[in-house]
């Protein structure tokens, strides 16, 4: 039995390092310990997982879809954050828009092309509302930090700033990102207003390589689920990573993500 799981994570920001160091500490002395390898971008991490070079990847929804497709569905999801379920995207405007259809003939600012919440999912759901982004709605894209799948939040901030400057009529922003901007005082009071919320979809998960022995995967997940909010040491890490508890996979919420990624021709891992 492998006694150590090698986990890949994208170090999109320095704050990521202590989070995973804390999680490594939590696994110290466990039946299955773990170590972390840092990647600078998700495509590299996905390749490493497909090559069997790492055992588990902490993947965005886009990275997960790509691994799933490349392994014909044999890659196994081990766990998620409670906050990865029911993720939503908001459209934020300056107050004159009241619904998605008001976007017709206007300009929508999007974040990075590989960010599900800031580009892929809003384009997908607007299509469901009968709009054709790119023709019915002009798109202003901020493709910053491509490869990091929107983790840095920078492209969402740029999209919001474009609305404030009047260069776009609305911006697509993850609901959690918007809350961070609002609570952090980054949104000027009274100037912007969310007017549409997307249906729920899933965000990140731990994806294991298909060849990872089931008993290793199970022992690793069991240890992860022992982290609890009431434990002060754990809480510090959970807070930093934006969750209150790790949960077993709930895969239904990826259905729309699969559709969106495939429709938009982004499903290939290469």
């Amino acid at each position, binding site marked *: 039995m492998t006694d150590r799981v090698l986990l890949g994570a994208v170090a999109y920001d320095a704050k990521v390092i202590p989070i995973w160091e804390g999680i490594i500490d939590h696994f110290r002395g466990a039946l299955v310990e773990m170590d972390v390898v840092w990647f600078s971008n998700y495509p590299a991490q996905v390749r490493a997982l497909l090559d069997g070079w790492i055992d588990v990847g902490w993947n965005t929804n886009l990275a997960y879809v790509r691994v799933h497709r490349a392994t014909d569905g044999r890659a196994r999801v081990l766990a998620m954050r409670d906050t990865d379920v*029911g993720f939503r995207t*908001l459209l934020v405007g300056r107050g004159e828009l009241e619904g998605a259809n008001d976007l017709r003939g206007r300009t929508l600012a999007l974040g990075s092309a590989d960010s599900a919440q800031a580009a892929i999912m809003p384009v997908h759901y607007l299509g469901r509302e009968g709009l054709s982004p790119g023709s019915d709605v002009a798109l202003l894209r901020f493709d910053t930090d491509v490869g990091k799948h929107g983790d840095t939040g920078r492209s969402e901030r740029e999209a919001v700033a474009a609305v404030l400057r009047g260069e776009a009529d609305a911006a697509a922003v993850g609901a959690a990102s918007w809350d961070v901007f609002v609570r952090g005082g980054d949104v000027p009071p009274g100037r912007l207003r969310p007017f549409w919320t997307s249906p729920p979809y899933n965000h990140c998960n731990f994806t294991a390589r298909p060849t990872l022995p089931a008993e290793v995967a199970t022992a690793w997940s069991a240890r992860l689920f022992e982290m609890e909010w009431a434990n002060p040491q754990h809480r510090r890490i959970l807070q930093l990573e934006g969750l209150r508890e790790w949960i077993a996979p709930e895969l239904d919420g990826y259905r729309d993500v699969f559709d969106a990624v495939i429709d938009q021709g982004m499903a290939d891992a290469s």
Partner: protein
Amino acid sequence: MRPSERGEDPAARFDGEDLDLASGLVFALDVCLSDLQVGEVLELSSSNPALAHELPAWCRGTGHELVDAEPDGPRTVYRIRRGERGALMFRDRPDWGVTPTFRHDGFDTRDWLVGKAGEIPDRADPATGFAPRGAVVESGSEPFPYTVTERDRVWAHNVASLYELATEGQWDASKDIRWRDLRPLPTHVERAVCQIMTHLAENEYAALYVPARFIPTIHPHFTEVVLFLSTQVVDEARHIEAFTKRALANGGGVQFSTALTQTSLRSLLEQEDFSQASFLLSVLGEGTFLEYLAFVERFAPDPVTADIVRRARIDEARHVAFGVEHARHYLGADPDRAQILHDAVERRAAFLADASGASPHVEEALVLLAAGGVSATRIREGTVAVRQLHDTMHRRRVRRLTQLGFPAGTAEAISELHTSNFM
């Protein structure tokens, strides 16, 4: 459906008017929800349509539950349940409505023991960090590296009174001393004064550094002790200032420092245990210093010198009082600790064995000060006075020690072992 018909009654209501989260609703919600018990519901009425989009993520991010949202005319009524897993974890609620009693002249530190702030722990939790006594502390902080966490090892019953006396008794060594009243003195007398001032200042550095070094080791919930020791540090700073200024003020200068004094004081600085350090410094050292300062005041050749040492002695008396009362508390908790203190004195004496005997410079200066001149008659009188000073120092030390409960023989032995450097 009217909001009041939707199941349980809300514990609180808030009219958010048209505020959105970015315009300040986040703060209002936080205030309202923090007044609720976990599981209770806040009813928020709002006319701002953006909340329908913003509130779900806010609730999730802050650990509350958005129960439901119902239209109410042009408004929407949201029901938010306070979550048990909020961003901050407090096990208790802070005090509210405590009322201390004031004295006619103000709010005395002896009277601040009200509510949780008045609960002085027998054993303090290092994980409360710098939180003031009585504060409700979020769980989960790393413990601070305090080594004095037991009340017995630091407390004195009169420490709050001594702190009050200390804050009342502060003086200004620059302006309160009438430096301009100094007049030229005979050279040997001025030199004696300057040598004594040098020696006093040197000793007061030790009396500053030793408590200063222990303050960061003491748990802040023994607040009164920390505050008192801080006044001790400031007192000693002022004494160093005043003694040094006196050495410089009248045409003399800062004089000699001997190896004996250095060794003696270093042995104080190297003490690792607060109670032992306090016993050596404050009970024995500063206790002896009271006689030293009284002697200098009695024979001071000018009113400025007399005034400085008189003021310093009043300050030192507080330090001695704290040291004695702490020793009493420390021994009261466990009488066997008398041996620990005795051992500390013996260890220090053994360390100082090579540095025994009085500092000749200081002895000579004290004789000259008492003599007031160098004639044979005066020197004889001065020598007698200094002998008497040593006797008085010894008797007073023995008296303090027997008052603390040391048997007469032990008290004699401890006093005999005390450094000839005085401190």
